[in-house]
């Protein structure tokens, strides 16, 4: 017979209650300020050097987040390597966790891409892991809140803290005030990053398609094969091929804007809710952000994998199955 657990006052709920009370006190001491929201990432340095065609090179705050994410990924890679090199059959700790992740991803790739799984899998896993870390690292405290002060027309007044640090208080300054330019901002809220990943994914889809089918792959886009045998339907096939070309280009747009839109919406939601209901509700929003970040990383990787798997199968192969 199972022993029924008696309901008791645990300790963890007291910790949560303590944090809620702390946040009430903190919010009353320093009123939250609605941050300045802009789509383009803020630059945090002066022009470092100028390239001839591309233009000025400045470090933006999303680049800082990218460096942080890269460092975390490299550290994890070394830890996993050390864990796998030991002579145990089942690696423990972080190596075991990553073995489980990679194993399940590889099984998923194999069930979709078949014999091309070895070619498709590195792109799938790489894109998914880097987007995952880019999305998760923004949940660290201090992101999007600590930064340089800048003059702005509709700014706020500042109050001196210790040393060279200031806090922005919730009072509109007459004339010129200050706004905060954060040191680090979530990487996926930068359209450059998402567009670059989308271009890589779609370009490599074409490359894998050519590797799998040779130049027959382009027959999908410029379809002349049936044009002279059946004039009317063949012409329809040609139009369908043109539509395929357009949908290939639209993939870049939808990849880039899906990730960017989701993460930027999360940032705006966090900023607005943090001002309107600063107690307890932002934690729920943070949990939702964690969920959205993981789902979006999975979706980006999964779509890349499915498109690549589709590119390896020509029209002829499909007809054989049907």
């Amino acid at each position, binding site marked *: 017979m199972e022993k029924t657990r008696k309901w008791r006052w645990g300790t963890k709920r007291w910790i949560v209650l303590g944090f809620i009370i702390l946040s009430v006190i903190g919010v009353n001491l320093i009123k939250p300020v609605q941050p300045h929201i802009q789509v383009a990432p803020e630059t945090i340095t002066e022009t470092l050097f100028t390239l001839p065609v591309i233009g000025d090179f400045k470090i933006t705050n999303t680049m800082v987040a990218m460096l942080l994410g890269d460092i975390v990924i490299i550290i994890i890679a070394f830890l996993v390597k050390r864990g796998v090199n030991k002579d145990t059959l089942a690696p423990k700790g972080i190596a075991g966790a990553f073995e489980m992740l990679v194993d399940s991803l590889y099984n998923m790739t194999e069930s979709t891409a078949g014999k091309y799984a070895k070619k498709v899998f590195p792109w799938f896993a790489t894109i998914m892991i880097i987007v995952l870390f880019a999305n998760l690292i923004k949940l660290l405290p201090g992101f999007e809140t600590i930064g340089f002060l800048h003059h702005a027309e509709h700014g706020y007044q500042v109050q001196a803290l210790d040393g060279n640090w200031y806090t922005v208080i919730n009072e509109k300054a007459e004339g010129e005030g200050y706004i905060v330019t954060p040191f680090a901002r979530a990487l996926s809220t930068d359209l450059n990053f998402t567009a670059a990943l989308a271009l890589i994914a779609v370009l490599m889809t074409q490359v894998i398609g050519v590797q799998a089918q040779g130049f027959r792959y382009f027959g999908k886009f410029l379809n002349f094969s049936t044009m002279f045998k059946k004039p009317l339907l063949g012409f329809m096939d040609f139009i369908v091929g043109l539509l395929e070309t357009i949908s290939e280009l639209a993939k870049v747009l939808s990849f880039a804007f899906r990730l960017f*839109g989701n993460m930027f919406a999360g940032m705006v939601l966090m900023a607005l809710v943090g001002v309107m209901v600063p107690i307890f509700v932002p934690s729920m929003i943070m949990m939702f952000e964690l969920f959205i970040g993981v789902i979006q990383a999975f979706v980006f990787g999964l779509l890349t994998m499915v498109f690549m798997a589709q590119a390896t199968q020509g029209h002829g192969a499909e007809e054989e199955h049907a």
Partner: protein
Amino acid sequence: MSGDIVLAAKFIGAGLAMIGAAGAGVGIGLSVQGALEGMARNPDTYGNLFTNMILGIAFSEAIAIYCLVIAFLMLFVL
């Protein structure tokens, strides 16, 4: 005066742009409904259906995200 009208038009435009999210909501609901019905009838197909369901959700969600990006453009960029 003209600045106020432009500001109001921005907000109205951003609100109108988000109407498109209704269609995406219906689409996501329908795809999840179909997948769940399939899973309930035949639980063995769970893995296959789940992957395809996520794909369908991602495609319909993209439409809502386009609306959201347009709304953001109106609010923060223009």
